[in-house]
């Protein structure tokens, strides 16, 4: 199946020994010029690439305090060295967060600091060569920008910031990644990451409405481009057809229907994901974010609700107000933007949703905290709401729930292995190896507590798990959407499920008499 070996589960999660250069290589496919130029990049290595690289680096150092401070403040204490899932899974020392940062820091020291200009050997500074750029390209595409290292860094250094800057610099000298740039181009040209045209999307949504009518006997609406709805739903396009994503979408539909919140998706902005984040491009994050503002205005909605997507929620929660705000034309009595889990959780708190947990009795669930939600956003009004709210919703939907090892959840959660623009087939080896720590934690709860399934609230996590679970001996459909559980358990007013549960089912009585 593949020309690499799936890592073995370790008997004890000890710190791996370093094995130099095991992940050396060319990195993921380099972007084609046509994808780059649409995004404002040159698309090929310019003759004066060295000057351009240093110029862009200087530019970013002057624009991002994070980058400037992080280049200076690392003390090489080693606290982060065993925290990255890619290091744990590959043993390549350049996947230790500090070593990854050092790829850039060595160049920074050489050209931007006194010590590196005059005593390069002493402080480990290196000249910028094309080999250095190639190494950047390879190893800065072995970071999923998950921020786990930053939790443990005594200086708060976030490797994600360095990775983003490196990718932005590389793109400016024609070394952008194909996967991310092609996807962003699709967002601009078609409206979503998957290149799903409006017509096809409309068809899918109509099918879902029919399906709901058949299964529940309730007219759950899945509107597209409907002007005057209460809410605009921004959700990752994988929710429109991938498994288990779409089961989550059905869950949102049922919850919003039950609460009487009319909603629509926009064909123009039919994508919550924002890969501008992954490539570290402020301009592109902003341009992609502006679609949401435009769609909200065009469709005259009062609120914006986001579906289950990790980095999309980071961009929405942390950046949307900055990038595309102020949203003074929306109803200020709701958070702007709001997460679907905040909606569901709030409704559960107020007793507005009837849940039949027994529907999920065949499952024992655990929950995978998605990195961008866990470490770069919040839900609700308390710090840590991003951990408590999804768990509360899961526990309201099923009777059997177990957390994984405390060192692998909440703000110490391990990335699924496919985040940050790495969810591409040309990085499959990295993805499988990077999933090791999460798979180990899952293995432990399956053996000790009989966990059958794992829920997530991120389209990338869901897709990545679908691929990686079989490599580690799990069923690929063990991964579920949180709102899939909600969807199974929710008892909508007037639905067949309600009648069945309350035992006053006329149809059932009729069919019995027919028999």
């Amino acid at each position, binding site marked *: 199946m593949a020309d690499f070996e799936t890592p073995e589960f370790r008997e004890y999660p000890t*710190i791996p020994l*370093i094995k130099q250069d095991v992940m050396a290589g060319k990195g993921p496919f380099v972007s084609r010029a046509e994808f780059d130029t649409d995004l404002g990049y040159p698309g090929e290595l310019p003759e004066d690439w060295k000057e351009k690289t240093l110029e862009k680096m200087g530019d970013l150092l002057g*624009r*991002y*305090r*994070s980058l400037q401070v*992080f280049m*200076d*403040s*690392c*003390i*090489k*204490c*080693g606290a*982060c*060295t065993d*925290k990255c899932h890619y290091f744990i899974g590959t043993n390549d*020392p350049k996947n*230790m967060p500090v*070593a990854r940062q*050092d790829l850039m820091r060595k160049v920074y020291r050489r050209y931007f600091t*006194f*010590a590196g200009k005059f005593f390069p*050997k*002493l*402080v*480990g500074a290196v000249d910028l060569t094309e080999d250095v750029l190639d190494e950047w390209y390879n190893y800065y595409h072995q970071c999923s920008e998950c*921020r786990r290292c*930053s*939790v*443990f*860094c*005594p*200086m*708060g*250094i*976030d490797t994600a910031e360095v990775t983003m800057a490196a990718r932005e610099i590389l793109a400016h000298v024609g070394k952008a990644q194909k996967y991310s740039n092609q996807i962003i181009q699709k967002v601009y040209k078609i409206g979503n990451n998957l290149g799903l045209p409006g017509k096809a999307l409309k068809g899918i949504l109509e099918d879902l409405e029919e399906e709901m009518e058949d299964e529940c006997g309730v007219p759950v609406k899945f509107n597209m481009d409907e002007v005057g709805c209460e809410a605009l739903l921004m959700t990752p396009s994988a929710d429109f057809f991938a498994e288990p994503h779409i089961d989550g979408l059905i869950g949102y539909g049922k919850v919003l229907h039950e609460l009487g919140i009319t909603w629509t998706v926009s064909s123009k902005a039919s994508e919550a994901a924002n890969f501008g984040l992954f490539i570290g491009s*402020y301009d592109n994050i902003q341009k992609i974010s*502006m679609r949401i*503002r*435009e769609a909200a*205005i065009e469709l005259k909605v009062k609120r914006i609700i986001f579906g289950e997507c990790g980095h999309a929620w980071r961009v929405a929660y*942390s*950046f949307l*107000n*900055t990038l*595309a*705000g102020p949203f003074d*034309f929306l109803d200020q009595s709701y*958070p702007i*933007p709001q997460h679907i889990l905040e909606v569901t959780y709030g409704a559960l708190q107020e007793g507005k949703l009837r849940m039949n947990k027994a529907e999920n009795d065949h499952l024992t669930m655990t929950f995978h905290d998605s990195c961008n939600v*866990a*470490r*770069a956003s*919040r839900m609700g009004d308390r*710090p*840590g709401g*991003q*951990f408590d709210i999804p768990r509360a919703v899961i526990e309201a939907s099923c009777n059997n729930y177990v957390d994984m090892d405390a060192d692998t959840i909440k*703000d110490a959660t391990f990335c699924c292995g496919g985040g940050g623009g790495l969810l591409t087939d040309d990085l499959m080896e990295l993805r499988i190896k990077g999933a090791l720590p999460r798979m180990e934690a899952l293995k432990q709860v399956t053996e000790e507590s009989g966990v059958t399934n794992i829920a997530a609230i991120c389209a990338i996590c869901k897709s990545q798990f679908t691929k990686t679970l079989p490599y580690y001996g799990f069923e690929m459909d063990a991964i579920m959407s949180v709102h899939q559980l909600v969807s199974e358990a929710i008892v909508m007013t007037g639905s067949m499920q309600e009648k069945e549960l309350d035992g006053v089912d006329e149809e059932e009585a009729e069919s019995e008499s027919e028999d």
Partner: protein
Amino acid sequence: MSAFYALLLTVAFLVLIIGLSKKIIQYSRVPAPLKIPVTPAPLTKGGVAVRLAKEAILFAALFRSNKWTWLFGWMFHMSLFIVLLNHLRFFITDVPVLLVLLQNVGEYAAFTMFIGLTGLLVRRIFVARVKYISAPSDYLWLILLMVITLTGIVMRFISHTDIIAIKEFSLGLMSFNWQDLPTDFPLMVHLFLVAILMILLPFSKLLHIPGLFFAPTRNQVDNPREARHISSWAAELDAEKNKVQPK
């Protein structure tokens, strides 16, 4: 010799203050265009102050990360803090009672400082991951600090130096009224290395001292939905954008 040291230390002090100020000004001028606190993060400025204090005083993140590194690192830094307080007596004519009292316990901080540094050096040499990321300067800093500590210990406990004369010298430094310095070998080494340390600090990883407080991952309030965060250059883009507005 005394004049050389007086000049060296004065220059070192100026380099330290000017260099550090320039860096701090740079850090505060470079904008933080986006909200990037590592969450869960405090929702108020007071909360941020507590978060930073826990990092600066207790090394909270490092404690979570690696107990040995924390133990040696914290031991070194806290001891250094006490040692620096003890050295204040050289720059104050009437030493306050508290400092006098501290002196009784504080003089032993030099030993814990040395143990901490030794632990960090051993770790740097023997843990393969840490060795891999170490540049020559990383070892040299530890050795430099160890020699400074050792010469201090020698002067305090073994071959006593004339501290009255040193106090006259240091008080003289502050008023540019240079006095004679005792010419003990340990003192010469001690002061020379301290001067080197002060001169190099603004150009080295010792910038982690201001850096800790300038990391947006730790010093930002988690309130992006409630308050619109907009930095200088982003504001320019924002204004240029001529945004779509509802009709």
